[in-house]
């Protein structure tokens, strides 16, 4: 009962000077808002990337040339040690493989009459479509015959078709890919823009054509491998590593000159990266929260000084130290708590705005909101404690004499 009266008094004190209270809470509001916005953007990025990696399928293994480096990734074309022979060796020597596809990639300008577009081009085997879950909407994928014949045929993504052909049917039409004539034989089914790249905006051509006619390459950028459904992926990974070490004549004890990554590892890696990224963003935002707390402390010191007389009166009529301490702590927690609440709304709105404007997704997690609210209450307690203690320690006689 006493505390409901004290809390009423605290609320009334805050309301008495709305401008000052709002300004004090503003620091916490901005801090919490920034933290919420950053954390939700981080969570959104994580969801995006994990979704993308997950959609690759659990059986996918990617072999890349070059040493296992950090999460940064490496330009595949700068390492030349992955060859078609390697791909053939895998087909022959590794157990439990469903499909294998050599992969090269590059960018190219595609032209159709007066329309052109710059896109990514993948050179691969017919197995690539199955490995990477690409479905054909119209026409057909190319065949082994097309590969052995170095055919100039292309399967286009729906966005590329849109850009070059509009609504008309592209099948059978001739386009220029890097100046070379190609016939469109198929259109991919849409996969949906995934923010970071658009899988609907590309072309897939036979790897032989890509290597010999388009890009002049003698090495591969990647070998994609699909393991059989009921096979242990790590054993397949091991098998691949063994075969390639033999092919590349790597001595016992030396490092691999290639990397084999499973989807699980990719997930782990991207989780870690985005997790760190989120923490970093959140941490920076938290600095502003600290400043908000200092603002609260500042205002509370001023308030205590201003109300010295009032504190003296209260003590004279019987308020104990803890009554005064409690009242002022209540005020500071109320300030920071309300600031935090408003900050959650502000941060949510900010995240939604950024999503609408920049295309990043934002995922607002309940756990983040709860964290932000508890932190803002904690800030009220921590930064309000010292001013409140000073108030409680005032000597009633001195306080009553204060002008």
């Amino acid at each position, binding site marked *: 009962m006493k505390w409901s009266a004290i809390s009423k008094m605290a609320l009334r004190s805050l309301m008495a000077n709305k401008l000052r209270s709002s300004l004090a809470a503003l620091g916490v509001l901005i801090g919490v808002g920034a933290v919420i916005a950053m954390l939700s953007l981080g969570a959104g990025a994580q969801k995006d990337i994990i979704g993308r990696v997950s959609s690759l399928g659990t059986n996918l293994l990617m072999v890349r040339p070059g040493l296992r480096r950090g999460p940064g990734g490496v330009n595949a074309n700068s390492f030349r040690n992955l060859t078609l022979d390697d791909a053939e060796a895998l087909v022959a020597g590794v157990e439990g493989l469903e499909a294998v596809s050599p992969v090269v990639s590059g960018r190219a300008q595609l032209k159709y009459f007066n329309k052109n577009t710059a896109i990514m081009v993948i050179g691969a085997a017919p197995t690539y479509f199955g490995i990477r879950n690409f479905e054909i909407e119209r026409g057909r994928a190319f065949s082994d015959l097309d590969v052995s014949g170095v055919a100039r045929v292309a399967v286009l993504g729906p966005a590329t078709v849109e850009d070059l052909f509009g609504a008309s049917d592209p099948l059978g039409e001739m386009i220029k890919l890097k100046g070379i004539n190609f016939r469109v034989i198929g259109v991919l089914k849409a996969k949906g823009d995934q923010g970071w790249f658009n899988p609907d905006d590309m072309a897939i051509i036979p790897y032989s054509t890509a290597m010999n006619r388009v890009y002049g390459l003698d090495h591969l950028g990647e070998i994609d491998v699909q393991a059989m459904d009921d096979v242990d992926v790590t054993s397949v990974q091991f098998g691949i590593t063994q075969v390639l070490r033999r092919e590349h004549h790597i001595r016992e004890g030396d490092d691999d000159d290639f990397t084999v990554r499973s989807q699980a590892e990719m997930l782990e890696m991207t989780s870690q990266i985005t997790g760190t990224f989120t923490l970093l963003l959140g941490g920076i935002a938290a600095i502003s929260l600290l400043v908000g707390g200092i603002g609260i402390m500042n205002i509370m010191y001023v308030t205590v000084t201003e109300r010295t007389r009032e504190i003296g009166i209260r003590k004279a009529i019987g308020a104990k130290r803890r009554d005064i301490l409690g009242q002022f702590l209540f005020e500071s927690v109320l300030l920071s708590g309300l600031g935090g609440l408003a900050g959650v709304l502000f941060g949510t709105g900010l995240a939604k705005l950024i999503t609408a404007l920049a295309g990043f997704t934002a995922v607002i997690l309940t756990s983040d909101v709860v964290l932000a609210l508890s932190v803002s209450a904690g800030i009220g307690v921590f930064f309000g404690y010292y001013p409140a203690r000073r108030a409680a320690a005032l000597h009633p*006689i001195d306080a009553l004499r204060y002008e």
Partner: protein
Amino acid sequence: MVKTYELGGSVIRALDGVDLDVAEGEMLAITGPSGSGKSTLMHMLGCLDRPDSGEYHLAGQEVAHLSDDELADIRNKRIGFVFQTFNLLARATALENVALPSVYGDAGESVERARSALETVGLADRMGHEPNQLSGGQRQRVAVARALVMDPAIVLADEPTGNLDSKTGTEILALFEQLHAAGRTLIIVTHDADVASYCSREVRMLDGKIVSERN
């Protein structure tokens, strides 16, 4: 009681051996020029401070060496203050001001007691007003009601009419007489001889000592 202060290097004996007995139901005036120690004595009597040496028995309880929390409790339940500058909370109504001591007491906020205290001082019709809506005399009445709400052993008034005009001051003193007639123990600290004349007993102080008494 003895109370000394240090001020700028020199030691001041604010109370230099004061012996005082106050009977229940008395109306006592403590007078003297400034610096005589009457304010210090009031602080002691009001348990706002402790003497350096000596004893203080209030309603049969020795209170001179209690802890801060215990003193706060004594102030809450056994003592009522009336100040020269009224000392009401500006953002609370008269009723809330009068009820404030009960908020800090054990029994919790008591609006009924506050109401009856306001009736005693004749301000029942102004309960919902805030201090800035009341005249000086009315504010002091509210302060008196606040001093009475916990049914204290003594009511201590420090220059209660100092900020009031003579007519209003007289009204307040008349109120005090009323309370005295009803059995309250009142102690008024003042330098004004007219105010002191309302009291049946007067104690004069000079330089920290009681120098004379009138009955």
